[in-house]
């Protein structure tokens, strides 16, 4: 099988790099923690990887707005390599602080679906302070847009995973941006009420705290660019790579993973958690593309 190489960025306060690398390894990829400055030192390095992941954390302490300062480092020092990486079909994921970085660099939501899709590094949205005014670690239920072009979320309906952020309220300055994104199925993943039937939870109607933990527009938890390659979300799917990380595992009620491969082929078998499929999707996408 093709070796799929994943660059997992770290440094300057990124702190979910170990587990983010681990989940890619659990789905068969070769993942490497790569310091931001090693990439800046040799920008050509990026093209030797198939997938880029920007994990969660507190880059630069979230000062001057979450993701802003790391976003600037990428935007000014790695503009061309990043543009080429996406233009050449490389999947990119940003989780939590990584999502904030992608939004502040303008890689998300990226240029509108009806035009040239090459990244233009223009900021079109933001992630603002939670309406609650506080950072929280709590589990949420997410549902995915089944028609989304996002290569990361194919085949997924609903998962539980934790949010751990203080600045996760997705905002735009023009409602029309959201309408256009919705039409292009870029509003990939939303917070939903866990009591709704599976597959029927997504709504534009603002859900109350803490079902929507931050007050995001249209309950948005994550978005992709118009190509479906670049995906960012505030919640942490890597934090539920195994069922024993789900709070309900002690009650025998942790949900089964929706995985694209049979139980016996999964590295954790029946203990695979719901979040792992997201990473498997991207690895499979790269494999299928190159085969």
């Amino acid at each position, binding site marked *: 099988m093709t070796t799929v190489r994943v660059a997992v960025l*770290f*440094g*300057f*306060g990124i*702190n*979910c790099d*170990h*587990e983010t690398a*681990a989940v890619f*390894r*659990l789905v068969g990829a070769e993942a490497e923690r790569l*310091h931001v*400055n*090693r990439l800046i030192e040799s920008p050509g390095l990026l093209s030797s990887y198939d997938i880029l992941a920007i994990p969660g954390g*507190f880059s*630069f*302490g979230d*000062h*001057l707005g979450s993701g*802003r*300062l790391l976003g*600037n*480092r990428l935007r*000014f020092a790695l503009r061309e390599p990043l543009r080429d990486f996406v233009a050449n079909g490389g999947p990119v994921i940003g989780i939590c602080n990584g999502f904030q970085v992608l939004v*502040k660099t303008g890689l998300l939501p990226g240029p509108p679906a009806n035009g040239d899709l090459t990244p233009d590094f223009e*900021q079109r*949205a*933001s992630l*603002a*302070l939670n*309406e*609650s*005014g*506080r*950072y*929280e*670690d*709590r*589990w949420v239920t997410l549902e995915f847009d089944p028609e989304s072009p996002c290569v990361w979320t194919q085949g997924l309906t609903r998962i539980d995973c*934790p949010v*751990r952020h203080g600045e996760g309220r997705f*905002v735009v*300055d023009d*409602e029309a941006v959201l309408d256009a994104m919705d039409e292009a199925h870029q509003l990939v993943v939303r917070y939903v009420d866990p009591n709704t039937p599976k597959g029927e939870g997504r709504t534009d109607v603002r859900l109350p*705290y803490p079902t929507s933990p931050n*007050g995001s*527009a249209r309950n948005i938890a994550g978005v992709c660019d118009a190509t479906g390659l670049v995906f960012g979300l505030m919640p*942490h799917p*890597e*934090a539920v*790579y*195994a069922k*024993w*990380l789900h*709070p309900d*595992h*002690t*009650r*025998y009620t942790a949900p089964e993973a929706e995985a694209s491969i049979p139980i016996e082929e999964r590295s954790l078998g029946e*203990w695979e958690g719901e979040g792992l499929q997201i990473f498997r999707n991207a690895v499979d996408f790269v494999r299928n593309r190159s085969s």
Partner: protein
Amino acid sequence: MHDVRVEVTPRLGGQAVDVRGNVVKARLLQDLGIDVTKVRSISGFVVRSPVVASMLGERVDDLFVDPIIEVGRLGSAWLDDDTLFPDAPDLVITIGFKPGVTDNAGSAALDGLRTLFPEARVEGAAVATDLTFAFYGLPEGADGPSIAAGLHNPLIERALIQSAPGAEGWQQLGYPERPVVEAQPPAAVDLELDDEALIRLSEEGLLALNLEEMQTIRDHYRHPEVQAARTALGLPPHAPTDVELECLAQTWSEHCKHKIFAAHIHHRDEETGEDVEIDSLFKTHIMRPTLDMQEEMPWLLSVFHDNSGVIAWDDEWSVCMKAETHNSPSALDPYGGAMTGIVGVNRDILGTGLGARPIANTDVFCFGPPKWEGDLPSNLFHPSRVLRGVHAGVRVGGNESGIPTVNGAIVFDDRYIGKPLVYCGTVGLMPATLPDGRPGHAKTAEPGDLVYMVGGRIGADGIHGATFSSLELTEDSPSSAVQIGDPITQKKMLDMILEARDAGLIASITDNGAGGISSSIGEMAEQTGGVEIDLAAAPLKQVGLSAWEILVSESQERMTVAVHPHHAEAFEAMAAIHEVEATVVATFTDDGRFLVRHGDDVVALLPLDFLHDGVPQLRLESVWSPPEHAAFVAPETPDHNDLLLRLLARPNVASKEDWVRQYDHEVIAQTAVKPFVGVERDGPADAAVIAPLHGSSRGLVISNGIVPRYADLDAGAMVVAAVDEAVRNAVCVGIDVDRMAGLDNFCWPDPIVSEKTPDGRFKLAQLVRANRELERMCRAYRVPCVSGKDSMKNDYGTGADKISIPPTMLFSLFGDHPDVRMTATSDLKREGERLYLFGRCRQELGASEVASMLSESGEAAGIGGAVPAMEHPEAQREAYAALSAEIGAGRIRTAHDCSEGGLGVALAEMCIGGRRGAMIDLDGLGLDGADTFGQLWGESLGRIVIGVEALHEAEVCDALEQHGLTLIGLVVEGGRLVVEDGYDALIDVSVDDMVAAWKAPLALPVGGER
């Protein structure tokens, strides 16, 4: 250099919200009852750099402003702008830092500025930040100064208060200019003085040395050979330099040398007539038992001598743990003090062996009552403010470092108003063997190794922390002892150090904490037998530091690392990639000397053995007589429903969810039992379980025990209960009782008899009893103490106003969990589950939570009586082993221990977690002497409520019956907890009512927390 001011404020209208303003509005209402119409916020940045305003102005949206949600402005105040701020506010308060105080947002902004403007990469460039709040609709009588007092700490921050603009508009804060300070050349300090003058010198210099210690130092300089060596190096021959005296004061401080635990004690017991001499409580009752156990426990890899204790875990990994306190700084600045506490203990882990990775934090706090309405001594914050500040500091420190806070507790008692206790603990993971074959837990420094200072720079902050914490708190306690942590600088350093460790570049490493490099390098020098330091090489935050200040400053985020010279180049290259400063400040030698230069001048020369072993042993007096308390008598006709709901609302029992949820408890993707369990994920977890190796379900358990109330009757009982609670909690989740290790963390009021402390003999006797019981419990439970800490001066003030904390020991525990998929939690799982009480109820209500509650309310005369005891700890260990094995086998999935509030509160918490009712019958619990009141609310140790499915009942009963197992009831439908005594219902309360009572007291309003 130009100073350019930038102001940023949130856009309003549409989806935009001023969250910061809303938070302050909500807090004003909660804290002061002031209801304003609106609060708006403005962030200010004073940029000092070669970049001129016009250049900066073009890039404001690239750096300071988020163009989607904010607008920025250069120069004059936003408040002067009529379009964005059409109405004049009633009050404007701007809060900025005082000169020299760590400004993390400012440092981040400077870093961002340098990304955009390479010309700003010059010494002296800086950014200072501030926050402005504009208040609208201020009610009559609300005054600026009292509102400002709630928004800032004058020790470290300044406030600009305005109620109207001046002629030139609204005023703004400028750059916090540091007054120019000249470095003082080292001076000789004449110690040929009379005793009174020696003591005065110690007190006035904040040296915290006693007379005998001062005399010992003086005598050292009388030796002719000492004088000859000094003359040869150009040092004053007959007297110490200020550098030497400060260095000795730090190294010999109670904080660093644990002189009370090392003291020779004459102990008398007036009850029994016992009269004995004890040579060091530490060696006798803590070290000896562990070393004895180590003979049978080869997995104890490193105990006592390193920054944390290390145990072997699996074949490839070792784990270590350390807990310590940061009490005095947290009293003065709760936020900064607590943050430096948590990032400081993280560094202890990083500095263990050749470097361990911190993987989990625990936080245990002791505060005054959050709703305290009594008097407050001057210079002390209200307990609610201490809680908020400490919580925020630990939250920021832990979250930004990417280390999950997995377990903790908050304990309330009036006396912690005098000194809050802030215990921070960290667990670390290290490779058993490095790629180059060296064991991860052993240090390998050699003479000739270069000593690097890595991380932050040295500043005037944090001078005298070690000696200051060895003194009682007073109104004049120095602000220089307070610091604010910088988690991002530390995180960069941590990433770099661990990479250097795996590359084999580190020969030895230790943390820079109390005493600064005088302690860190001084202690490390023992590994090779000498060191030569050059203070002129040390990078400084500001000019004007004298040599002694550089040596003892405790500026944060620094590690001391020894590197073989042939690795220096690779080490420095790695530091550069991570943007971490690493500077050679010393070289290890083997000549037995601690030699300090400042450039060409020798400023200190101390023989290593005098520095480390020269401090004279204290001789202390201890006399025990049992304290007298009015006996607790239970009400004749108790209303148990009412008692239950009131106990659930006690701050010691009530849910801390809104606070704890603000800690990231599952970063690293390993937390298998989180702080919250149950249907609504809000029930209490007894212990944390983590599976830190991704893809493997092998786990670790982390738990804590702390019961200061019992010390009012007997400090020995307090320790017994703490050890049992930590082990009991760990057993509830299925720890392997053959693989657990403990940490003792003593916080005591000053136990040395003196004019200030007339009851010192009694307080020391409490410490003696505590240590004896610690030994008895640890030996019986086979839980070795592998590391520990003590903080021995937890008093405020003197005389009649003196406040001494209750003697408090936190026992932290970590150990192996064979498989995190097999664990139990406190929440009731499903209807039909059978509930058993494991353990025995004795009539033990002395110093219980219910006794305290009813005494405080006047419904009982006192708290006296039988305090919970553990007569047969060996048998208890066998019982725990049997129970843990049943959990590990998957036959028990529900378990919760009885602690504050006894069985009654434990059952209620289990119902809350499961959102299910239970039908309980106490009949059968009276065999060990407890009446129904004692059965319900007594706090006998060793008790755990377990839930068993019918399928496993026979096997579980077979395994556990011999250890005391009583069927007490059933999980039922209907959502009510009903407790009967065989005949009558004692309790009949709905789960909803219990949830409400338990969750309300410490709840935070949404939008009301910073």
